């Protein structure tokens, strides 16, 4: 059976052996996991620019309502709704997921578990192509008559179901199709990650020798796969409602609009952990390498993330406390929601404990890694106000919620991603990024980030609701001090966006002129660092690595070197 599979895939890959590949077959239609990882990464970055631009436009509107916005013009309410909706959708589905799971998963999993590619390279390519198609469909949806969909990323029907309500007869279905395609792409990708890790590990790599980020990506893929099914069914139903006029979610004809909320949040809440776990994995890797420490309580972290995954299926209705679910059900969901703080806290404590007794090198990657831990702490704890149903009555759908989940999602999708890019850039492209500019970028990202969202916590606690395009319409919210905070947040955002230019320039310049990295610039243990930078096709050359120990054997006593690569044969006396 296995031989046959070999022959088949080998055939498809045959032309990769020619040294003179065209640009197309090497970078566009490649089945190589590294190239597909890059494709995901660059598509994700491009979409992040769009999402960031949207954020800039609507923050400008909030700070200077009605003014003409540079690079946009005057913002209409419909366009505002559309920008808010698509900012959320893009940042979650087209930035966080592709960069954290797909790009990092594709690039790292085969390298870290010591095999030459994903188990289904063609499925992998197909996954990216569907993803790209979904991104294109989403972008098209901004330009159709009626404009892009503006019913919030949660797309609650009946607003999302009928054009007479949402006024976007083409935008809404296209948005839904784009999201569904994206989900299909990640189902294919996720199954690939899971089977690869289950089946294709290097010789000697046992359960507990797998680097934590691989575990995290696999758990996240499983979470995604298990949670998204009902949403796919729901998306089909909603699409029928939108385009054909069925009444699945139409209360007048006996449907139930709240059912969609359940279908959506049954996926939507685990989705938070789908993007959180890979980010935590990245930070775990970075922290260990630069603190020169073994990961504190590896097994406990692993079990906690599995527990986190399971528990995440029992909390979804905390998004619906006040949206019409039976109030008695809330007791259960409050309890589970507050309990979920425990596994998250265990992981965070373990990361902090990892620093204890370390020898911390403040590289840019490490700074971003530490910043993730610090900022995510705030994002995590603010969830408690919202998970507690009592305070959620007041805080639901205010800027407090918004600030809370930006304090989780920005560390996840932006800060951890930067940590990953600064950390693995040498492996990806063979050169290091400039550290000085990296540190300027770091401070230019972290300080404005807090400047954006801390005022929003206060605004939210003051009763300011989300998705409102002009607070001057509400006398209680139109006060000068509240407006000052909005302006402060907007200015912070602009500063943060400007500092991203530093990153882009640094990235491009380092591609060409960066310091040569060599095989293992950070003196790390995991398998990706034993091969060339960038890794050749097939990753490890003639002999595939064999694993003898866990991934975090740093500073082992009695050894001269403070790291101990996983594939290094143990010396006889140690045995």
């Amino acid at each position, binding site marked *: 059976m296995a031989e046959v599979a070999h022959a088949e895939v080998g055939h498809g890959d045959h032309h990769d052996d020619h040294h003179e590949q065209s640009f197309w077959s090497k970078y566009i239609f490649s089945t190589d996991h590294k190239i597909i990882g890059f494709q995901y990464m660059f598509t994700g970055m491009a979409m992040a620019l769009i999402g960031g631009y949207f954020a800039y436009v609507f923050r400008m509107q909030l700070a200077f309502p009605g003014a003409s916005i540079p690079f946009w013009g005057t913002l209409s309410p419909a366009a505002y709704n559309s920008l808010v909706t698509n900012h959320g959708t893009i940042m979650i589905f087209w930035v966080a997921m592709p960069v954290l799971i797909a790009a990092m998963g594709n690039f790292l999993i085969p390298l870290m578990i010591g095999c030459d590619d994903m188990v289904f390279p063609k499925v992998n390519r197909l996954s990216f192509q569907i993803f790209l198609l979904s991104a294109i469909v989403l972008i098209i949806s901004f330009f159709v008559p009626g404009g892009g969909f*503006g019913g919030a990323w949660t797309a609650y029907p009946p*607003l999302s179901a009928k054009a007479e309500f949402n006024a976007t007869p083409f935008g809404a279905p296209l948005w839904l199709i784009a999201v569904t395609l994206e989900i299909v792409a990640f189902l294919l990708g996720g199954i690939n990650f899971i089977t690869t890790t289950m089946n294709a590990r290097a010789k000697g790599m046992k359960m507990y020798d797998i680097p934590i980020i691989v575990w995290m990506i696999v758990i996240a893929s499983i979470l995604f796969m298990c949670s998204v099914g009902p949403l796919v069914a729901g998306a089909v139903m909603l699409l029928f409602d939108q385009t054909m006029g069925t009444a699945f979610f139409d209360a007048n004809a006996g449907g139930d*609009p709240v059912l969609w909320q359940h279908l959506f949040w049954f996926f939507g809440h685990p989705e938070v952990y789908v993007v959180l776990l890979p980010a935590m994995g990245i930070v775990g890797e970075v922290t260990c390498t630069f603190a020169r420490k073994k990961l504190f309580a590896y097994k406990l972290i692993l079990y906690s993330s599995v527990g986190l995954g399971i528990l995440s299926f029992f909390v979804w209705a905390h998004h619906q406390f006040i949206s019409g679910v039976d109030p008695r059900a809330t007791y259960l969901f409050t309890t589970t929601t507050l309990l979920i703080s425990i596994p998250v806290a265990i992981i965070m404590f373990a990361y902090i404990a990892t620093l*204890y007794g*370390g*020898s911390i090198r403040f590289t840019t990657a490490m700074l971003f890694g530490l910043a993730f831990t610090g900022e995510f702490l705030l994002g995590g704890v603010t969830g408690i106000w919202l998970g507690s149903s009592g305070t959620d009555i007041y805080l639901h759908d205010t800027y407090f919620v918004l600030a809370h989940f930006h304090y989780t999602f920005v560390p996840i999708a932006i800060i951890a991603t930067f940590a990953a890019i600064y950390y693995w850039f040498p492996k990806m492209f063979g050169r290091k990024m400039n550290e000085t500019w990296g540190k300027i970028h770091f401070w230019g990202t972290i300080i404005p980030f807090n400047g954006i969202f801390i005022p929003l916590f206060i605004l939210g606690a003051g009763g300011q*609701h989300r998705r409102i395009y002009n607070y001057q319409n509400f006398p209680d919210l139109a006060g000068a001090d509240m407006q000052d905070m909005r302006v402060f947040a907007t200015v912070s955002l602009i500063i943060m966006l400007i500092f991203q230019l530093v990153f882009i320039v640094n990235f491009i310049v380092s591609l060409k002129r960066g310091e040569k990295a060599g095989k293992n610039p950070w003196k790390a243990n995991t398998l990706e660092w034993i091969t060339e930078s960038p890794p050749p096709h097939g990753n490890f050359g003639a002999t595939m690595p064999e694993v003898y120990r866990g991934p975090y054997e740093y500073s082992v006593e009695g050894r001269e070197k403070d790291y101990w690569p996983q594939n290094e044969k143990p010396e006889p006396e140690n045995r």
Partner: protein
Amino acid sequence: MFEFIDKFMPGLLEMLLPRASSYAVQIDVLFDVITILVGFWFFLVLGYFFYLIFRYRHRDGHKAEYISGETHKQKQAIEIPHYLILACDVAIIIPTFLVWYNIKIEVPPPDEEIRIISQQWAWTFQHAGADGVLDTPDDIRSVNELHVKNNTQYTYHLESRDVMHSFSVPVFRLKQDAIPGRVISGHFKPILTGEWDIQCAEMCGVAHGIMGARIFIKSEAEYAAWIEANTPETAQKELLAVNEETISEAKEDPNNG
């Protein structure tokens, strides 16, 4: 009980918004309790985190220790705080349940009922009128203006005509989504006279951003006068005119006023 605890609390939310309903104090107290518990942990952990970063920064000739974190003693470094967090969780869950029960589960016998009908993009409030009974001819309907009597126990019935809306009165600390096809009931008791915002807190379409209303909490005398002035016999013509007028025009008045 909440009033008593409130004496020892910083009253963070009250700094930002007054409390205009009988149960606002409960949510404020719960908010403060969570703030204190969580804030304590957050700053403790963050402080320790920064201490570790500073203490174990890289210095020449200094090598990191090898700590696996797998021994029982080392694991306690995580286990003990995690039991403490569990204790905090319980300390939060219990008052949470109480607050939730008081606000969303138990509906005290009402002095007066009110029907709230939401649609794109306006609120219609059906006041019980002079006789205090809903669905009688003397009901007073008003668009985007909710008039309530101070110190009166209200029960509201929330409906939606088209899409999801959310009835949010920040000064009451009250929020409830309106769902087409469902009638959702709840209660509030104003305790402070004045005039404040009502917002729609659920994305409801293009003009979601201006779907606001005003709540007027009146003393008994003012409220009686308002009833007097607005009962349909005397105000039928005006009311009809308001209803016939385009929604946006009707809405502009309270917001600008």
